[in-house]
Structures are given as C-alpha cells and as structure tokens.
C-alpha cells in the first residue's frame, strides 16, 4: 500500500537552522532515499517551491479567479513529500521517522494513505 509522507515545514524553524544542520538534513535525505530505494519501497519524492511563489485559483460566482500568494497564511506549509509503497501502516510510520525533518523540533511529517492513483508512465 502506498503512503504520502508530507513534510510540513515552518519558515521560522528553517531560517533558524545552522549551516551544519542544513548539511545534515540534505545528507539525511540522500541517505533516506538510498535506503528506501534499496528496500524496493521508494516511488517518488518532490520538494516544493516557497508558498510565496504560489498562485491560488478561487471561484467567484462560478468564475475561476487567479490570486497571488498562498491560500492561507499558515505557519506550517507543505515543503515536499515522499511517496512510498510499503507492507503496512506501521512500516510507513517507521519510514517517516527516518526522514531527517522528524528530528527537528517545529517540523513535522504527516503520513496519509493514498487511495487512488493514475500516472502517465509507471
């Protein structure tokens, strides 16, 4: 079964990281990808641009309207995600804890099952 591991980040927490911490996180993601690739559980990962780069389409009277900026000024936002294919929910939770973000106070990983999927070339 496939799970989406969502990395919920907080700008103020990210800004407060030291250079060493940032290097550790980068290396940690590399090691994590290597490990889940080797185990045959890795499907995909993507990192997203900053929410300040977002545009939001919202309907006004049934007509789509484009707005600049994030949908909500939330403290936490989606920084990126992994998709993994695992044997159980327990395994998904175990993997989520291996993501380096999971060891930084103020960052969070949300784990949610995937229900439907279709891909262009899989």
């Amino acid at each position, binding site marked *: *079964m*496939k799970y989406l591991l969502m990395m919920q980040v907080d700008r103020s927490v990210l800004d407060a990281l030291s250079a060493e911490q940032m290097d550790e996180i980068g290396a940690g993601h590399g090691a994590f990808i290597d490990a889940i*690739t*080797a*185990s*045959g*559980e*890795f*499907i995909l990962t993507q990192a997203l641009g900053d929410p300040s780069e977002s545009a939001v389409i919202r309907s006004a009277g049934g007509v789509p309207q484009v707005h600049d900026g994030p949908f909500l000024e939330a403290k936490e936002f989606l920084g990126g995600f992994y998709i993994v*294919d*695992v*044997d159980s929910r327990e395994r998904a939770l175990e993997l989520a804890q291996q993501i380096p973000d999971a060891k930084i106070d103020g960052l969070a990983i949300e784990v949610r*099952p*995937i*229900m*439907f*999927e*279709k*891909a262009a070339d*899989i």
Partner: protein
Amino acid sequence: MPSIADDLLRTLAPQVLGRLVRRYGQFDLAEDATQDALVKAATLWPDEGTPDNPGGWLYTVASHRLVDLIRSEAARRAREEDYAVQAAVAADAADDPASVAPDDDTLDLLFLCCHESLSTSSQIALTLRAVGGLTTAEIASAYLVPESTMAQRISRAKQTIKSAGLRFGELEPAQRRERIDAVARVLYLMFNEGYAATAGGELTRVDLSSEAIRLARRLHGILPGDGEAAGLLSLMLLTDARRPARTTSTGDLVPLDEQDRTLWNRAAIAEGSELLVGALKSSPTGPYLVQAAIAAIHDEAESAESTDWEEVLHLYGLLDHMVSNPMVTLNRAIAVAMVDGPAASLRMLDRLAGDPAIGGHYRLESVRAHVLEMAGDVAAARAAYRAAARATLSLPERRYLERRAARL
C-alpha cells in the same frame, strides 16, 4: 512476450528454474539465467518455430547462461572462491538429477518464494516472477509501481534468500505443512489484491486474480490430494465467478444481494463446486475448504432470498473455531443478522468494536451500518455508513457507502 509461446513459456519457467536450483543451488543467479532464456525463447521461437523439446531447449540455454553468470560472478570475487565455482561448473558435466519430477521442483520453488524470511510484498513479487514467469515490468504495472522499484524489491528478496542460505531440501511433514500453508496464504493475498484492490480506482485488477488462480491451479495440480490446496483453488474460482456482476459498467460496486446472478460465471462455479465436493469427501476440512463451502452456498442460491443462511452461519461458526480472526467473526455477525435478526448481530458487533485488531476498521462500520439499516435505525445506520466511507481506502467502496447513506 509474444502471446503464442506465452503460456508454454510460463509453464516451463518454474520447471527450468527449479531444475537449475536443484542442480546448482544458486537461486539468485539461476533466476536471472532463466529469465534470460525466456527472453531469448520469446524472441527466437516466433520466427524459428518452437523447438521439439521446448523444456530441454530452455534448460540448456538457461544452464549455459547460469554457468556464464557463475563464472563472471567469480571473476569479481577473490581467488579463494575459485574452488566453489569450479565445483559448481563441474556439476554441469555431472549427471542431471532427472529423477526429480518437475512438479517437485515447482513446489520447492514456491516454498522458497513464499519463505517466512521475506516480506509479504516480496513473497508475492518473487512468486509472480520465478513461478508465474511474469517479467518485472508486468509485475510492476500490476502493482502500479515503477519498474525500478519492483526490480529492487525482487533483487532484495533474492539477496535475502541467498544470505539466509535457503535451498531446496527434504522437509519434515509438519514443516512441509507450514510451507504449503504459507504458499496458500501468499496466493490468496495475491488473489484478493486483484479482486478487491485495497487502494485504487478500479475495483478489480483482473491480472493479479487470474495469476493467483493460475498458480493455485498449479499448486492443486502438484498436490491433488491436499484438501487445502483444493479448497484454495475452489474458493478463488467460486469468488471470481461473481466478478462480472460485482461492478456496474461505470465501476460502481454492487452488493451480493443486488447482483444480477445470470452474469455469474457458471463454468467457474461448476468447477469450484466439483473441486469442493471432491475435497470434502477425501480430505480433512481446513479453513480454505470451509470458506469455499460458504462461497458455494452463495453461488448456488437462485436468489439472495433463497440463500441457506443457517448453513452459512454453521460454517462461519466452524471457521471461527479453526482460525482466530476478527474478520471471520465479523462475517459470522452478518450470518447471525440473517438467521437470528439484527439485535443479536449488533451485540456481536459491539463486542468486536473493543478488539483493537478490528475496531475502527471500515468493514466493521460497514457491516454495522447494514445491520442497523435492517433494524430500521436510520439515523445510526447513516452515521455508520459515513464513518465506513471515511475509513475505507477503496474509491468504489467509498462511493458505494456514501450512496447507501444518502439513500436512507
């Protein structure tokens, strides 16, 4: 692979691989060599014609490839291992253990692929490739994962087998029973994965169910006297027979009591029933036989109303004693509702809700919703349907449950 030789190739694949493993003992390399020989056959045979002895052809090509692989693997290693390699290559000239029947090789392969040291997804993937003769790309597409992910999973599984030193060999009767049960479990999971995909948009993934039936047929062919192997195949056939009626043309789920029974596959029902009757006469009754018997009662009922629920209830009681599994108790609760009425069923469901293994599971909420509807408690039924709809990971199930709630 081209379809003309497809079936033949896929039947021969495990026999060739099994013979190689018995002779050389190197499952991981033998598996690669067999795949290479299959690809070669699929390329050459359509043009040059199928050889007179296709199994012999495949074995010869695969064994030459294996010797090459063993040599090149050896070249990468240190000199001290040369001796082992020479011994393996020398076996090429030695007498072939032809006295071993292809069936035994295939069974030993199944035992290896379904070994307990492998994860469930690895067991299924390896079985589909090594015994089912499917390519990695085909398995990957059945599971909607990238080919590289599936390739890695299979390679990891083969590595596990290698490092655990698993090989073919004589088994104690109890061990053999355990291995057969493990194989049956893997095949049944494979079947269910195809029949009611736990996640995904389409309710049935035809390929995995058909593959599971094909392999269960093989298992039964190898072990004709084994009641559980017969029961497993019978259960699959009797369940799969309802597939044409299980969804509408738009992919919506149709519950058993509303299915158009004229759409059921009569040939599959006849075959499943015959297997069941034969096995019940000659073998001790195990869990798969009992489940097949329950499926047969549904399949043989002219209408939902004429279903022999007393017998279904009796059989679920039997099954509940054989295997301790809350899913069985849950199914028994449905039969209780039909025989003793909703009140008795709801009491059972309340007790089940306290079991952490099933409490909160969408199937429990779904059954509760149906029984509450039977009892005429509309508000509670609607709430339970909605709770079940939120908890399921199947899109067709969710649509069905939501519609059921809206209809009240």
